């Protein structure tokens, strides 16, 4: 067990170093710039609203700073990075042919995939954590108040990153990386795409739509981040939110276990 942990640690650290070498730090710098643009561009409107005594508008602008930073940084950018890094997690090693000298060691394929995934997650969660810290700093600086629901929303963001990186990494062991990333997006969009079809008059369409609906991961019924500020949810259903997160976590684990089983039987053909 301890040997497996050491191997996973070594592979994860290597994956993290590889990720940093992929110039994803430019994304961090770009997100910093976007954050500055959000703040600076909102300053004029905020000053006008404050000077004219429109306190509710001023509060809305301040909340917008936090919401936008969280939304752009931790939702959009982190999810895009999760899909990209997950999808190339194995293929990059195959392309570089470094995988040969790793898999010729006494290492089972599941250990290898776990190490690669943890290395990817280490970067993604650090990236998200930085975004959340910046958002909280802005909230403190502009005296933005939020409900405890925000923390549930933040936890959901971490689960989303885990889901997208795990599913795209899982798919990438048996399909090309671009397709794996595309499938990860598609599968998360399935409930929205097929919800109307579940009421289709033809039974075959309903059957397929229902199958697709239940194959897809669970969707969060409310915007947790958006509902954490002034327009707070009246009856937040914490139990339901945690069930959705747990379901998505388990969904990812199942996809990952299936991927490990497929990867264990996969041949390594290098060109």
């Amino acid at each position, binding site marked *: 067990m301890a*040997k497996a942990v050491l*191997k996973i640690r070594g592979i994860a650290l*290597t994956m993290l*170093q*590889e990720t940093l070498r992929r110039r994803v730090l430019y994304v961090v710098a770009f997100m910093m710039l976007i954050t500055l643009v959000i703040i600076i561009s909102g300053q004029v409107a905020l000053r006008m609203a404050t000077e004219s005594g429109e306190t509710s508008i001023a509060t809305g602008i301040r909340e917008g700073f936090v919401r936008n930073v969280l939304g752009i940084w931790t939702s959009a950018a982190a999810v895009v990075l999760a899909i990209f890094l997950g999808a190339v997690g194995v293929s990059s090693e195959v392309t570089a*042919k470094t995988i040969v*000298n790793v898999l*010729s060691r*006494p290492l089972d394929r599941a250990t290898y995939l776990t190490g690669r995934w943890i290395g990817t997650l280490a970067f993604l969660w650090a990236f998200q954590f930085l975004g959340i810290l910046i958002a909280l700093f802005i909230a403190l600086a502009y005296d933005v108040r939020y409900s405890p629901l925000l923390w549930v929303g933040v936890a959901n963001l971490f689960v989303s990153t885990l889901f997208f990186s795990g599913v795209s990494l899982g798919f990438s062991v048996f399909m090309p990386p671009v397709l794996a990333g595309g499938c990860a997006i598609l599968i998360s969009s399935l409930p929205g795409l097929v919800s109307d079809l579940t009421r289709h008059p033809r039974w075959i369409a309903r059957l397929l739509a229902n199958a697709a609906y239940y194959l897809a991961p669970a969707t969060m019924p409310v915007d947790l981040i958006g509902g954490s500020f002034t327009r707070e949810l009246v009856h937040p259903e914490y139990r339901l939110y945690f069930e959705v997160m747990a379901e998505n976590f388990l969904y990812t684990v199942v996809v990952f276990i299936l991927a490990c089983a497929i990867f264990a039987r996969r041949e390594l*053909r290098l060109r």
Partner: protein
Amino acid sequence: MSVSNGRPVIDVDGLYKSFRSRFQREVAAVRGVSLRVEQGSVVALVGPNGAGKTTTIYTLLGLLRPDRGAVRLFGQPAGSVEARRRTGFQSEIFHTYGFKTAQSVLSFYGELSEMPHDEIARAVPRQLERLGLAQSAGRKVGGFSKGMIQRLGLAQALLHAPDLLILDEPTTGLDPEGRKLVADIIVEEKKRGATVFLSSHILSDVERTCDHVVILSQGEVVFSESMAALQSESDDWEIQVLVLPQPARDAIDGAEILADGVGGAMVRCAASKKDALLLKLLLANASIGLVRRRSRSLEDLYMRYAGGSSRG
């Protein structure tokens, strides 16, 4: 085809492996290869490009699965964790992480090989020193020359003192000094008791270091012999004729004259014709210097069995 009757470290029986790309017909890379490699021996797999050497090696490591046949290492199915635990592998070109230092690359592979940390701490500088890379231990591998990377590749294969070393073209990209170093290390590893299975194009290196040679051509084993037998056995004989008068010269008509000068001539003939030729020479008053069985060179054998079959 059996290398030895001893306890086999590698046991390949009827290995068949083919590849099929999307738009191409099936291509058989390895066709019915069987070989056994006993503990402590050094066996070379030689053959032209596309002969199936790397496919055979990847199958031994479990990176490829046989279509037919059985492959076992240490009695375990090829690719099992137990078999890989006792195996060190160097690929033809050592692809590794350019952002790591030589030291950290070896430590990484040491961890993957389940070496305890204190053992890694001792083995890494020792192997770097052995491969002449001690001065570059702290340098990033991305800045290494091709030869240095190959040496590092050999160092990682040797790191955990494996019972079996599988080396795919270990001298690729090495200068003569590097090639000698690799040959010396193979001899040292053999003395340690390790089994070495290598593929190579450099026939002189194979002759110098190996106990047994297997020639692979178009996916099939076309020749398998111990080096000792190779050097002692021959179908041809050589006769040194010190004085070669004209009647004797007429007598050797049909035989091959290898050298003809003031010191006499060296004549080569098949074993079946040796006695008749000697008789003719003696009757023609030729002065015979020596009669010997001609030792076969690996290059001759290679050209005979695999020459002109390159796919690469």
